[in-house]
Structure formats: C-alpha cells, structure tokens
C-alpha cells in the first residue's frame, strides 16, 4: 500500500498492474497439479483413508462422495483463509471443525433433499467428512497462512487428488465385484455374460487390497520409497 502512495500514477507509469499475479500463474498451477500425483493426499500423505474406502464398492456413491469432499475442502479452505487473521491460535482447531461441520451439514441436507437414494447408500459416511484428515490437514497446513485464491486452488488440487484415487478404487471394485460400471452391466454388453464376479471385491477386503496395489503402482512410478 505504501508503495502505491510513493509512486503516484502518471501517464508513463500505469497503475501497479504488473505486480498482481495472473489468476493461474505457474506457481498457482502447481497447487493443483502437485496433489494429483507427486504429493497425493491418499497415496503419499496417508490422509483421509477412512472415508476413502468405505464408499467405494460402487462408482455412483463414490462420485457423489468425491464431489462432496471437493466442495467441503474448497469452501472450508476459502472461509478459513478469509478468517485466518481473526482466528485466535489457541482455539483454531475447534474453529476449523465448526467451519467444516457447517459445510458438511449443508452437503448432507442437500443430498437428503435431492439425492435421497445416494444419501441412504452413503449413510454415515457423509458425516464422516468432518473427520476426514485431508480437510483438517489442508486448513492447518495451508489455509491458515495463505491468501484466499491460493487456498481455493490448493483445496481443489487436494480434492481432485483424493477423487481420482477413490474413483480408481471404485472402478476396479465395481467392475470385478459386480461386473458393472455406474450400474451398467459391462461384461454382458461386450458379450461376456458368463463372467464370474469376485465376491471378495464387494467386501472391505477388496478395498484394502485394491488400494494397496494402486499405491504400489503409483509409488513405483514416482519413485517414492517409505522407510
């Protein structure tokens, strides 16, 4: 601000346009691209696994869950970032929880009103977005110290990173467990009607093993080794 006052705007010296960063500069694009692969919240940071697995036996509820989580992360990041200078450090955890819980209540009410079937399928797991460590983690690690737009992008990146992993898990579980994708019978459509289903994929065991294998593939590609 003080700089602006010291440099009065003249015709040769236009307003401080060049100092503002473009909305999607290189630095900001990294907020979105990093969590997708190199710093994925599920496969590398080991966060948010609780809800990641429970809903993944079919693609449809998984998709709704992914959208809900992206919504909650983006908006809680935005709100926290706007309030970051007003939140006293000592009660920041409970403030963050209150912000997240409010957004989750919104999501839950909307789902109950317009997508009742899906909301029944997701049952308590919508509520469990509150305790999803990714959301808390982003608020604590990023939104408390960064500007609103950066925080929105960061939330979007983490949300997308989370979404593709749970969608991948759900893809394999539904395809191998029930032989369908989004309820569409794939095997019959391509003339392999007698394809047996693997019952284990529908139970929780399938989720653990599929996620374990996805983590293996992903970490082998990025070369990340945990010691």
């Amino acid at each position: 601000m003080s700089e602006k006052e010291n440099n009065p705007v003249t015709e040769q010296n236009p307003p401080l346009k060049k100092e503002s960063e473009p909305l999607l500069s290189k630095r900001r694009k990294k907020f979105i691209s990093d969590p997708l692969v190199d710093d994925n919240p599920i496969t590398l940071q080991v966060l948010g696994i609780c809800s990641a697995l429970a809903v993944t036996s079919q693609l449809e509820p998984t998709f709704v869950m992914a959208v809900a989580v992206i919504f909650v992360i983006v908006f809680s990041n935005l709100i926290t970032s706007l309030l970051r200078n007003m939140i006293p450090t000592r009660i920041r955890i409970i403030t963050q929880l209150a912000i997240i819980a409010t957004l989750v209540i919104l999501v839950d009410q909307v789902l109950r009103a317009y997508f009742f079937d899906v909301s029944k399928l997701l049952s308590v797991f919508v509520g469990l977005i509150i305790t999803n460590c990714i959301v808390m983690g982003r608020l604590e690690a990023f939104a408390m110290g960064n500007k609103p737009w950066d925080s929105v992008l960061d939330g979007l990146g983490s949300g997308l990173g989370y979404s593709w992993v749970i969608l991948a898990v759900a893809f394999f579980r539904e395809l191998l467990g029930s032989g369908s994708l989004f309820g569409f019978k794939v095997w019959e459509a391509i003339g392999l009607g007698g394809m047996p289903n693997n019952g284990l994929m529908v139970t929780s065991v399938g989720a653990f093993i599929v996620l374990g294998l996805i983590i293996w593939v992903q970490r082998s590609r990025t070369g990340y080794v945990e010691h």
Partner: protein
Amino acid sequence: MDLLNLGIRSVFIENMVFAYFLGMCSYLAVSKKVSTATGLGIAVVFVLTITVPTNWLLQELILKENALYELTGLAVLKGQSFEFLQFIMFIAVIASMVQLVEMVVEKFSPALYGALGIFLPLIAVNCAILGASLFMVQREYSLAEATVYGFSSGIGWLLAIVALAAIRERMKYSNVPDGMKGLGITMVITGLMGMALLGLSGIKLDFSKEKKSKETAQVETTVQQNTALTELKK
C-alpha cells in the same frame, strides 16, 4: 444377553477397521510399535465408552423431534427437530469430552496420563469416534446398547491396531518391494486380516437354549483360536 451378542458382533464381525474402515488415519500412522499402538488403542476404548452414551443422551433428550419440547414444555418447540445440528453437536461433544478426559486423567492418574497424554488430543478427529456415534443413532440403540456398542467397538479397534503393530514390527525382517514399503504393504496386510475376520461373519449367539449356546461358544473359541493362529503364522 442381547448385549453380549452385540458386544461380540461389534468386536469381531462389524469391526471398526476391517468392516467400516473407521479410524484408518491413526490406525496407519501409529501402528509402528506395539507399545504406542496399545496406548492409543486404550485411549480410544476410553473415549468411545464415554462419548457414545453421552451422544445418545444428547440425541434423545435434545436433538430428536419433540425431545426438547418434552424436556422444557415450551409450546414453540412442539414438533421441532434439531437433527440437522447432529454433526456439529456430536463433534463438539467429542472434542470437549476428550478435553475433559484429559484433565481428569491428568489429575487422578499421572501415570496413565503419561502413557495416554499425547494420544488424547489426536482422538478428537479420529473417525472411529464420530462414526460410532452416528451408527448408534442410525441403528436406534438403547442407552445400554449404546454403552456396550461404544466399549466393544473400541475393543475391536484396539485389537486391530495392536495386531497390525505386531505384524509391522516383524516386517522389518522381510524383503518388501520398494514401492510397496510402508503404506502399500500395510493396506494389503489389513486386507488379509480382514479376510481372516470375515470367517467369523455368520456367528450369532443364541442364549434362549442353553445347550445350544455352549456349542456356539465352543465353535466361537475354536474359530478365535484359529484366527489367532493364522495371524501368528503370518
């Protein structure tokens, strides 16, 4: 006796970790050593046993439709339901109960505080705690059932994390592929443990006929022993 049935079901069959994936974050993060895993497990049992009945009271006396009207008798509140506040109220209860437990333990049992102290704050955001409260509401348990459910699902969680920690301690001696190290192999192990517990899913204790119950109990113990053996072998 239904309570015992419920207890056994929530420890083994509907185990928090293996059946519902609850509390996975701390389950994965704090399972490197058996001693710390036991500490966290006991803290979870403690907090679950307290918060589930508390949230039951909150749900029945305040949040449920007409509950506040019956409590206060104010005509304005007739037919009002505050269930939309469920999430935020439950999480507030959990956070404050955790704080309270921490203070009480610190005052009366410094030794226990030394052991559990660092884990207690972690628990406030453990999905298992909130999940148990939400399941309790969804399944319409009574107060006694809610208490038993809270305690036994805590025990189930303790069992899972201690077993995993024991396996991970032994894993140091195995040659795991690089990309699989850490999280990857832990997920697969959890899957295998879940598979072992899946074998217990048809068990129902029926105490109406005493003779039958003994047989079932025997089958129960043998199956348990078998599971323990398979886990030991691993």
